[in-house]
């Protein structure tokens, strides 16, 4: 097991930076997710760590070793691909034995058996990949990556080709396996729930830049900027203008500043669906607004409402189906309450056209 350290890692294709000065430390045995929308550079970072792509500048350290210019096959890493990438001409046994043989391990059989036992597929050794289901193929890919005992495990959206039920099972298996083996892991995903539930720390990326690198709770509760606030959880993304210690979104909204803000001017305001409380009776609290229920939809254990704030915008509120607020009907007059600590205000992006550039961590 080794730690991983990226310093000012940059990759440009032509003039466009795909990864722009990423600096990241992953401790020994830690599970870190690279999370971001498609095109944010997360897979590019992973491929550079694997050595499948050469960085334009910056360094990659695995443990004490600078591997920036080391060829892939000398890095001692395991990589699990989204496409599984099993060798179609080899049996499951030979797939898992591949890395061991290349490392000159003499007696591969027990090591292969051990790796297959980790993913509970010891009985499938003689099969060919095309004879397996998607979930089985993905577990074989994991066993194949782990069999040579790499110092670093890289996972490139390994669960996104599986159906929802299987994905949950695999998530739990993966988490347990990673913890038991204590292997340092870097996990690329665009699925925030996957990242939140699996990771020790999450690195959120946008436009090739790291937006925030912190624990799942921290990222969820204290987003570093507007991008993170909008990306994590289900957000109401609003625009407003600053006036004193409040932000005007049609109604004055109190908030607790988390990032440096200008004295006045346009800002982005994010309030998560789950942070809007609804009550039939009037409430005295900061940020209590009279509102009307306009739509109600049932989403399993929770109820989603679209409510119109009097004199303000329409926002979405999500409440537990068992709460009293779960029984509201369309047309009901309610009080919407928003905790000031759950209001994330950040400067509007340069250009203020709702564009998505220039959202580097403030």
């Amino acid at each position, binding site marked *: 097991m080794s730690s991983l350290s990226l310093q000012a890692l940059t990759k440009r294709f032509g003039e466009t930076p795909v990864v722009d000065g990423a600096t990241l430390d992953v401790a020994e045995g830690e599970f870190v997710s690279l999370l971001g929308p498609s095109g944010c550079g997360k897979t590019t970072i992973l491929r550079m760590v694997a050595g499948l792509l050469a960085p334009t500048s910056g360094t990659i350290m695995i443990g004490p070793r600078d591997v920036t210019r080391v*060829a892939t096959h000398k890095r001692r890493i*395991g990589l699990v691909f989204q496409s599984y*990438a099993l060798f179609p001409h080899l049996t499951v046994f030979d797939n898992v034995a591949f890395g061991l043989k290349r490392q000159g391990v003499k007696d591969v059989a027990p090591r292969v058996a051990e790796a297959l036992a980790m993913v509970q597929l010891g009985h499938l050794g003689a099969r060919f990949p095309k004879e397996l289901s998607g979930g089985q193929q993905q577990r074989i890919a994991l066993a194949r990556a782990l069999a040579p005992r790499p110092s670093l495990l890289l996972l490139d959206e390994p669960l996104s080709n599986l159906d929802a039920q299987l994905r949950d099972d695999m998530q739990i298996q993966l988490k347990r396996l990673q913890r038991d083996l204590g292997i340092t892991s870097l996990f690329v995903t665009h699925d925030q729930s996957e990242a939140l539930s699996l990771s020790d720390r999450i690195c959120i990326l946008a436009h090739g830049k790291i937006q925030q690198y912190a624990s799942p709770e921290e990222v969820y509760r204290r987003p570093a900027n507007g991008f993170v606030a909008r990306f994590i959880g289900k957000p109401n993304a609003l625009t407003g203008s600053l006036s004193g210690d409040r932000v005007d979104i049609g109604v004055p909204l109190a908030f607790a500043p988390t990032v440096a803000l200008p004295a006045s001017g346009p800002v982005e305001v994010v309030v998560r669906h789950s942070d809007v409380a609804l009550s039939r009776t009037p409430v005295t609290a900061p940020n209590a607004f009279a509102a009307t229920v306009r739509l109600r939809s049932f989403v399993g254990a929770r109820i989603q409402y679209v409510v119109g704030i009097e004199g303000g915008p329409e926002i979405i509120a999500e409440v537990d189906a068992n709460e009293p607020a779960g029984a509201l009907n369309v047309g009901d007059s309610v009080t919407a309450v928003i905790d000031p600590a759950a209001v994330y205000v950040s400067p509007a992006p340069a250009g203020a056209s709702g564009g998505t550039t220039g959202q580097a961590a403030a």
Partner: protein
Amino acid sequence: MRRLSGAALVTPLVLVLVGVFVGPLLVMLPTSFHPYVPGQGIGTSWTLENYTVAFTDGYYREVIGRTLWMGFLVTFIALVIGYPLAYFMARTTRTWRAVATLLVMFPLFLNLVVRSFGWIALLSNRGVINTLLMDLGLTTKPIRMMFDMTGLVIGMVHIYLPFMVFMLLSSISRVPRDVEDAASTLSASPSRVFWFVTLPLTAPGILAGCTLVFVLTISALVTPRLLGGPTFKVMSTLIYDEFLVKLDWPSGTAFAFILTAIALLVIWGANRVARRVAGGAA
């Protein structure tokens, strides 16, 4: 309903094949079992001699052996030259691929006879290459490259290389890059990635390309005729002469069937091997 429309769709092709391919073959089959009567043509009695002589007569055996050896050499050389070329084409940029494709295809645009005469101009005793070598003083006597295996193989490789390259190209392009990348993350050096992953995954393409080139080579007529001359014969030129020079139709027909049988045998064998090699891959 679906079966019916399927049958309707293949009917024209089947009719054409039966009419112009299977039909004439069947018409010719009896001829190969009649004796050749000099001055009279095809006899009326029945005999197997046209076939047995092909395997007992030293001259005919030599021609058959030479044909197979030529097929093997041309196939082997086309593979050795064609694989790196196809690999380059599959992995290079779009622009380079277009350039290479054009270069590989270009010989196909030229008439076969013109190309063969081009090789004659290059390879003959007083051709470009020998003149150059002698002028440079590298050799005093011309090196014989015509009317023997060397010239024939050079000419045939030139003609059939594009077929090999395009068969290999489609096969190499289909190898998923992720699978090769996976091998290199599993400590396989680039040469081992090629040896243990790329090559086995392209084996069906190699087999298909080799089968095609081999069958085309052993049945080619124009190039052996021009580059091999009247004395250095292969099966196709022999058949041609039996029919049109010696007017010995029964013997020519028998040889034609032997050549067809060899070609079918090679295709059948290659299919069997392909199924084995592909194993789980297909």
